[in-house]
């Protein structure tokens, strides 16, 4: 393996401004992880217009930091409030909150931070080794392969998300329809523009992401803003004892591996991996009855896993150009905005961006470890910030940000309309994630499908006659069979986890 580009990636990271963006990114990530209401996908979407003017590597370093930083932050509310900030921290709440009740919140938070650091770092090392091979392999892909790959991506995200399968597919379908608004990519006919010039260029991805994730979430939270929150449990310093460290060592190791492997799979990798890691710990423990009563392995395993998964979910995006989850879909959009199409050619054409971003995660994880152990009290104090003040400020940044994309008021109306769509979807049980992801991949899917059809002379069997695309078709068929099984398993575990979280 050629090490030169990897090393020159470190040169990119250590440019002072990139270090600064990395710090801003992970700090913001911790913040949104701690603060209820706004997830990492929404935060990244809202900040997209602001990153327009920044250099590509710096912009992606910043946005990626928000994503993995949020994994650290989500733990804090899980342990102290039994309110998981992110879906991937749900299982941490089981034993983490019990530890907090026993006055060991500091140990729980400390071991979570250390586990996250080890899981994240191990995952970056594996990513560094694996990604170039995947990208190299994917360079051979033609339109047929890309059609099938995009289909797999959308299907997996739709099915591994949190909503019911059929509703997620419906949401994805509507996203694909919305993606066709504007000029036809091949012959240039105006489609679904209703005679409006404003829609002729299609709908900007940023507006869709900001509308569905940003405005949609804010509106949704407005309806139920009055829920009182539980009190924050007190804790001392976020440092585990020696005995606790010895107990959780292997849990961290196992969690990291589980996280890395499941994180590569598109769709909810982080959530899924934390559930699996918890199950693994409970099964391998000598005394499983300790779980649910404050077992430190029940914090260490899942927290290492969700961070490892968050990192490895970058692999499909950076090597294949297929986002593995909703946040990756927004990052996909961010790269496109910078004029860098994510895909197998990224590592060759823009090694500075690729290795800069990957290596920045080492620095980001160190920064997060530093932020979470000594400075954790500062973030806990942020739980005091009132949603009533935060929501109007967020909505203001969103509205002005949308305007700044094209200096166009029409886009502001569009983002409000999409916000209402996002709100309605959540109320009726549709996930916005598959919608946004399908919207991102829509054009790729349509144009590669149409090119393949021309190539194959209208014969659909062409997809199985090319060897690589045939393998991918097989993978697709296999996932269609396997995923419902995985869902059933996960559903059972999630239900059990929820029962344990609720019924103390």
């Amino acid at each position, binding site marked *: 393996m050629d090490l030169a580009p990897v090393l020159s990636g470190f040169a990119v990271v250590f440019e002072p401004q990139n270090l600064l963006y990395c710090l801003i990114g992970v700090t913001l990530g911790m913040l949104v992880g701690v603060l209820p209401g706004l997830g990492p996908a929404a935060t990244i979407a809202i900040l997209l217009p602001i990153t327009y*003017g920044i250099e590509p590597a710096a912009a992606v370093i910043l946005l990626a930091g928000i994503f993995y930083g949020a994994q650290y932050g989500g733990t804090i509310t899980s342990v102290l409030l039994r309110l998981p900030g992110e879906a991937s921290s749900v299982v941490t709440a089981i034993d983490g909150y019990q530890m907090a009740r026993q006055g060991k919140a500091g140990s729980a938070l400390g071991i979570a931070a250390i586990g996250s650091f080890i899981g994240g770092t191990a995952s970056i090392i594996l990513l560094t080794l694996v990604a170039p091979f995947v990208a190299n392999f994917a360079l051979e892909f033609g339109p047929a392969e890309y059609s099938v790959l995009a289909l797999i991506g959308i299907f997996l995200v739709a099915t591994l998300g949190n909503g019911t399968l059929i509703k997620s597919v*419906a949401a994805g*379908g*509507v996203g694909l329809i919305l993606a066709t608004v504007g000029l036809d990519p091949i012959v240039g006919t105006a489609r679904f523009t209703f005679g409006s010039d404003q829609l002729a260029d299609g709908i900007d991805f940023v507006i869709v992401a900001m509308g569905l994730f940003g405005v949609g979430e804010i*509106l949704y939270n407005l309806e*139920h803003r*009055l829920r009182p929150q539980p009190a924050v449990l007190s804790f001392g310093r976020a440092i585990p004892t020696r005995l606790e460290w010895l107990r959780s060592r292997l849990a961290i190791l196992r969690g990291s591996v589980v996280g890395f492997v499941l994180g590569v799979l598109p769709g909810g990798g982080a959530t899924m991996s934390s559930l699996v890691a918890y199950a693994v710990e409970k099964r391998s423990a000598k005394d499983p009855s300790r779980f649910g009563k404050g077992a430190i392995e029940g914090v260490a395993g899942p927290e290492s896993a969700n961070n490892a998964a968050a990192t490895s979910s970058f692999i499909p995006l950076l090597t294949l150009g297929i986002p593995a989850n909703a946040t990756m879909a927004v990052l996909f959009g961010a790269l496109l905005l910078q004029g860098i199409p994510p895909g197998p050619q990224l590592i060759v054409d823009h090694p500075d961006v690729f290795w800069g971003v990957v290596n920045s995660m080492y620095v980001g994880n160190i920064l997060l470890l530093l932020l979470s152990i000594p400075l954790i009290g500062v973030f806990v104090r942020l739980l005091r910030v009132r949603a009533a003040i935060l929501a109007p400020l967020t909505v203001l940044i969103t509205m*002005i940000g949308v305007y700044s994309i094209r200096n166009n008021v029409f886009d502001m109306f569009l983002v409000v309309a999409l916000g209402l769509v996002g709100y309605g979807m959540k*109320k009726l049980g549709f996930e916005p994630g598959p919608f946004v992801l399908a919207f991102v991949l829509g054009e790729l899917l349509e144009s590669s499908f149409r090119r393949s059809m021309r190539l194959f002379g209208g014969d659909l069997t062409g997809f199985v006659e090319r060897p690589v695309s045939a393998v991918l078709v097989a993978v697709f068929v296999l996932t269609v069979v396997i995923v419902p099984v995985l869902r059933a398993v996960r559903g059972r575990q999630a239900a059990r986890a929820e029962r344990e979280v609720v019924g103390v």
Partner: protein
Amino acid sequence: MTAEESATPGERAVVDGTPPVTELPEGEIPSGGPGHAVLAGVVPVLLGLVTMWLARDLGLGTLTDPGPGLWPMIVAVLVLLTGVGILLRARQARDTEAFTRGAVVVVIAAASLALYAFLFELVGFEIPTVLLLVLWLKFFGNESWRTTAVVSVVATAAAYALFITALGVPLPHLIAI
């Protein structure tokens, strides 16, 4: 609702010292009835039908030479089918949420954002921004008048500094610096 009821963790929760008090979030969101479940199926069915109708006019072409309408048609059929599937399972569905009285706030909030966009170009961004923040802070958030005044004025000034001065976005504005 009074200010005391809307107290946030900051006011009651104590980071260090005081004995921990546990409370579960009250007021679980009521789930939607059969009407909501049916609505969740009707929307995709209608969207599918409308798209199919529009796509047909665009020209389907053939599989060998797909026209602009072919792809939207394929997706529209898929959406239509999922809608039918959702309708068939509507009886068992438990995944919708009822629209509570709070939904009125959501509609007003969305309308205020649309009005904001409308006024934005007419009178510059400063006055609509202050008004929007006052509405959200005072009437949606039940903040005190003092907090409302301070936050809305400071945030407007900060938005000016960030977007106009620092990022150079040509926002329509009254005050020139």
